């Protein structure tokens, strides 16, 4: 049998040829490549999922403040607003609000030099754990975090990531932020749809809708640090994923199939100027305020 795929269509075909569900196929493929057993691969996946939980708890336990001062406890502010009975809440849905604070928490821990899982990258590491853990905590507290369905949501998201990495890129330096936070949101949408019992096709619809909305997003970090706009963008991308899931569950379909959206993402990344691909040479990095931060940070 073949383990090779570069498109989502091929991934579905390979899994079907193997007679395996998408997550089981992806785990079996990893076991084959790493010369290990599917059980050992599953144990490692479980370990990494536990680390995503530790990151988000560390990020909520106290306000995260980075060495540069650019990261200043946004997750803790949101969590405090959730606890305060009289705080204004234009959007009150607990799942939505938790997805934002969890995504921020993980990415603030990253910005402050804490331990995270780069899923798919460090700068976008909050989106998928934020969405999946918030769903579990707010909507399915009965769901065992060590259970197969919860684990499979992370695996499904990874499958979408493999396709994007194979055909385009997951590096901001190659494809801008569409390749990092944009990819993460597409992966989160697919993972959540899978966790809610959606078909493989539904997962791809969610990934397509989410990724389309992120095409062209540049990577222009202030002072070259993984903080502005990265940290808050993790929360916005969690919302992007939730929008895609909501639309798919209402029967909305992407006019452009997922594999073609990935092709467009690659073409857009290739035509993006180097100044907007993680070089701190344009965009927000070169705003007057961005340059003030840069000088302040470089003076130490």
């Amino acid at each position, binding site marked *: 049998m073949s383990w*090779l795929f570069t498109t989502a269509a091929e991934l579905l075909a390979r899994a079907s040829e193997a007679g395996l569900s998408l997550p089981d196929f992806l785990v079996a493929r990893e076991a084959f490549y790493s*010369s290990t057993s599917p059980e050992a691969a599953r144990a490692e996946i479980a370990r*990494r999922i536990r680390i995503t939980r530790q990151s988000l708890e560390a990020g909520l336990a106290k306000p995260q403040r980075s060495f540069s001062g650019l990261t200043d406890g946004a997750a803790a502010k949101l969590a405090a607003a959730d606890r305060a009975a009289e705080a204004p809440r234009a959007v009150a849905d607990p799942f939505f609000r938790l997805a934002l604070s969890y995504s921020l928490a993980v990415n603030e821990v990253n910005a402050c030099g*804490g331990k995270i*899982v*780069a899923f798919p990258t460090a*700068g976008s590491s909050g989106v998928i754990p934020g969405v999946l853990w918030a769903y579990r905590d707010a909507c399915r507290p009965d769901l065992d975090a060590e259970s197969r369905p919860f684990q499979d949501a992370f695996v499904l998201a990874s499958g979408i990531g*493999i396709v994007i990495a194979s055909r385009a890129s997951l590096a901001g*330096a190659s494809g801008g932020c569409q390749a990092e936070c944009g990819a993460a949101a597409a992966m989160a949408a697919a993972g959540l749809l899978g966790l809610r019992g959606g078909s493989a096709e539904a997962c791809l619809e969610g990934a397509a809708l989410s990724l389309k909305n992120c095409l062209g997003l540049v990577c222009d970090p202030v002072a070259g640090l993984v903080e502005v706009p990265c940290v808050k963008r993790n929360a916005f991308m969690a919302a992007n994923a939730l929008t895609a899931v909501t639309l798919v569950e209402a029967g909305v379909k992407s006019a452009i199939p997922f594999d073609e959206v990935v092709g467009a993402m690659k073409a857009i990344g290739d035509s993006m100027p180097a100044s907007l691909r993680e070089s701190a040479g344009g965009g927000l990095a070169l705003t007057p305020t961005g340059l003030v931060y840069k000088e302040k940070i470089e003076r130490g």
Partner: protein
Amino acid sequence: MDERKIGLFDILGPVMIGPSSSHTAGVARIAFLARRILPGRLDRARVSFYGSLARTYKGHGSDKAAIAELLGILPEDERLGFAPELAAREGLDVEIVPVFDAPERYHPNTVVIELVSGDSSLRVRGASVGGGEILLQSINGFEALIDGRLEAILVFHRDEPGVIARVASLLAEAGINIASLASRRRDRGDEALIVAEVDGLIDAALIAALASLPAVRDVVHVPSVKS
């Protein structure tokens, strides 16, 4: 280099210390491999950052990541952030050199690590290519492409007929499948290097058997960086 496709743990990972997969975790992994290639007690160490790393290594903790690996701290260990203090306590002086005029052929995120341990020295050049993925590009002046996804073996030897065949046959006898094989020499009859990436795990007995082959000077086991 092995042409294997992207795996699950390339996406769900690496487990790392923030803030940057390319500027922190990638640098840590390159230094981790360099330290495995020269494992003895270090007398001197120099880490040179090129390109984007030269300009932004401080904010990304790239220097701390490199020093941590030279001390044997794993890339996912939170002590990474305190590596300079730990190095000072152990009496290891690591020189950090930002180089702003990188050679054209260097990747935009290149690290060069130079280590001295007793009579042995090592110079490794690697690139951090994004998402924590890395590529070692040269070892002691030999082209050596290792991405750390698989275990690898380095065989330093004198260029003469039959060395590659004897190495391949010992691997075959141990049931080890070769995923990629490359061989380079300085000159005919001069020093040469075989780089083999393999599936599965390499044990000490195999390394010892390879090291006892005629014309072989040294054998180094380079583990995978999966963490």
